[in-house]
């Protein structure tokens, strides 16, 4: 517990430091890639990652960093991603139910890896003046936005900030997955995702995020409107405005090896 608190504090401090290092980038908050720029190298087998690398010098750079011995960032893109079609969504939230009931054995929208509940009333921007005409959601212009994990390309904000390197790319989809063995439930990642797509499960006391159900997403199968699709990965990060400000870390020496 005490360790958790310390780690949480460290995370906050680091986030603050990052904000000092990169003040000018704040305006570009819409562009995730410029936001997150520190790598937390994941403890993955070198061979796995090497397969995704095209340049030997790049690989060498990672191997050379003394602080990163045995740790590699995820460079490879995921193979698949969820695509939501808001015009088709009718707000039944069976996606959230399928996500948690068929994966976790409980109905728990708050930790669902597809999120409709928070946009249902007023849209992603929340409650604003004049909601009854202009904004999204049932009380607004009726458009419901289903939010899904973008399975970010490198650098991956949630993986980057994880002090334990617990967020890994997992076959067969390459989804960015939380390894429960490594996750210590510090919640730093939940604040690092620009779209707030990572939740903390109070029952397991660990963070949880979309893992694409090993290639057969339950939410897609459960949607009575076919409003969610599982497609070949495309970069959705630049198309989706972020939901919140995020923690980020300053680049370290290993970044400079490539950039």
């Amino acid at each position: 517990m005490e360790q958790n608190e310390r780690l949480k504090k460290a995370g906050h401090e680091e986030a603050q430091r990052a904000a000092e290092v990169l003040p000018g980038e704040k305006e570009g908050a819409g562009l995730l890639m410029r936001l997150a720029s520190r790598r937390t190298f994941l403890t993955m087998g070198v061979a796995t990652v090497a397969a995704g690398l095209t340049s030997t010098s790049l690989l060498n750079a990672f191997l050379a960093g003394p602080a990163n011995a045995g740790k590699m960032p995820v460079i490879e893109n995921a193979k698949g991603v969820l695509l939501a079609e808001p015009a088709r969504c009718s707000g039944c939230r069976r996606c959230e139910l399928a996500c948690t009931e068929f994966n976790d054995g409980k109905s728990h929208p708050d930790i669902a890896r597809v999120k409709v509940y928070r946009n249902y009333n007023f849209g992603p921007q929340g409650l604003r003046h004049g909601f009854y005409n202009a904004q999204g959601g049932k009380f607004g212009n009726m458009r419901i936005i289903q939010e899904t994990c973008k399975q970010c390309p490198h650098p991956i904000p949630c993986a980057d900030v994880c002090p334990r390197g617990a967020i890994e790319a997992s076959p067969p989809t390459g989804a960015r997955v939380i390894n429960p063995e490594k996750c210590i439930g510090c919640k730093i990642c939940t604040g690092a995702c620009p779209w707030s797509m990572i939740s903390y499960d109070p029952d397991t006391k660990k963070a949880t995020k979309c893992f694409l159900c090993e290639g057969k997403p339950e939410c897609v199968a459960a949607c009575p409107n076919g409003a969610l699709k599982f497609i070949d990965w495309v970069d959705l990060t630049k198309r989706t405005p972020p939901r919140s400000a995020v923690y980020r870390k300053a680049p370290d020496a290993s970044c400079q090896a490539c950039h």
Partner: protein
Amino acid sequence: MTTYGWSGKVLRVDLSTGRIWTEKTLEKYRDYLGATGIGYKVMWDEVPTGVGAFDPENRIIFGGGPLIGTGSPCGGRVAITSLLPTSLPELVGSGHMGGHWGSELKFAGWDAVIIQGKAAKPVWLSISDDAVEIKDARSLWGNGIYRATAEICAEMGPEAQVAAIGQAGERQVRMACIMTGNSHSAGGLGGVMGSKNLKAIGVRGTGSVKIAANKREWKRLVNYVLSLAGSNNQWVVPSTPQPWAEFHAPGSRWTARKGLYWGAANPPVETGTCDPRDLNSMGYRCQKAVFDLGPLAEQFTVRMDGCHSCPIRCHIQLSVPSAERYGVSRFAANTCIGWWGGRAIKKYPDGPRGMTFIEGTVVGKHMADDYGVWCNYGQINRDFQYAYESGILKKVLSEAEFKSIPFDLYEKGSPEFIKDFIRRIAFREGEFGFALGEGTARVAKRWGFGRDFYGFEWNMWNEKLGFPKHHSVENGGQVGALINTQYNRDAQCHSHINFYACGLPLGIQKRLAAEVFGSGDAIDAFRNYTPMNAFKAKFAKWSLLRKELHDSLPLCNWMFPWIASPLKERGYKGDTTIESQLYSAVTGDRKSEAELDLIAERIFNLHRALTIRGMKTKEMRKEHDLVPDWAYDHPRDAKPLSPGVDKMDREDMQRAFDLFYQECGWDRATGAPTGETLRRLGLASVAWELEKMGLMP
């Protein structure tokens, strides 16, 4: 210990003292499942005869049950139980709403909320997981439901779900409702909240509902249940011929077809053929806008909506830009009778399903749903129209008041009239607004409605208690009639219609009926009724028990039960054990269909006992279970029980009551439950109390 399905806690609030406490659901209410079961139990134990609907001693019970918040399809319903302000006398009853409020309550860790007492000043109740707080609502009081909801969400977070009353409920207008999610209203009980100075209950839950069954089993069951779903009201065939469909029925709410769109979606979404085997197009089956409002409404349909967890989307979301000229938002959502406001006007200049009607519907929805006015299943319009057309209004209103009402707009069919009409009721303005807001029973007395008001064309079913027909003789002859005699408001029972009007050919219906009721004679050809028989009595009783079961689990009684399904490969057979399968899987408490029906019978009999105690008479057959004359006399020139009419026969109907009471284990002469029946249902203490009051047969 983990509790499955139920959260395990019931929230109790006494607004007089500010006391907030917790009861253990399973210890106290397990034999009553949830929602109406808990509601009737609390009303029986805690609200003695003589307490009025607006007295602080009255209770108002909000709840779902073990299935709410889970992926049980169509499990998002909430029943609100109290004394009904509209019935005369004020007897027990429930209003029902869906949306996401009840699920949110479960996620916050509560199975039900029971409110008693009266706050000294306006308050609202904030339930944020375990944190429950009575909050000052003086700044909300006087505002409509939309604003109250928004302000509470501003405080609790945009994810919060709010059940609130409007100006009508605040003023204890009897015809007031409780609204959630801007299109779900629970009828008749807004004034009870108002009498307690309770503006709203806001709920935010971050917790979970645990499922007892293992994940794989649960998924298999959920997908099995989904595979048997039809459209709204369990229509199992489409309304137009579809390539996959062996049958179709023009009255079906399965309106999807190629070329029919959610026309105002961006980009427009085609509903398509909706093969029932495709579980990823279920949400398009019911394009309800064209069903409720006519073909013109297609272009204004943004999408469909509905309750939490329900794959069949029956709530229409419209965007009607031209409605804005009346000063309301173009965005309007509701379904079925929830659109009643538009029908305050009898004749629109461009026809019954023209543009002005659609605009009037939008205007009416906003007035009714923001002020929180209830319609008594559409009767409020007929109360007004009768009083106006019969000339009664001119007599009972002062000249000044009569002149102040824009009847010219009514005659012109202008939606502007609706704004004036509903505002007067919500604010109890003048004799007109006050009396219409009192509800049909009272306004008919006060204004001296003639016998003609109780004729067929004005829809009244029970003139004493003041409610209209709701799937009565027009839906199943004697079966519908019996069902309509059992409640203290319009019968909210759809168990019979969900089978009776499912769209299948009669031969198939008879085969399916035989499997459930022992004979195909339980069901007649539509509008060609045969004399009463014992199987119809079984059908009627079963329908009522399932309604109570559905309200308590909850499952939507506007969808369930499923005697039929859309699947040819199953011979169109549904599954009447779905309720017990879902209950057993979610709670881990394995109960058979018969065991759950027994609980439902307990709940139903408790409702009956409450009615007997409330009316202070055991003479239910004479005093309560009334069938209006028009059911026997309309139309004049047809024989009873002849083809093409819903005309019952007086003697036959008496036989229907005999058989029905016998089926229920009730005394034939009085229609009151016998001691033996009450004891069989575990209601010995109820029998004992009724005995003491001289109310046992």
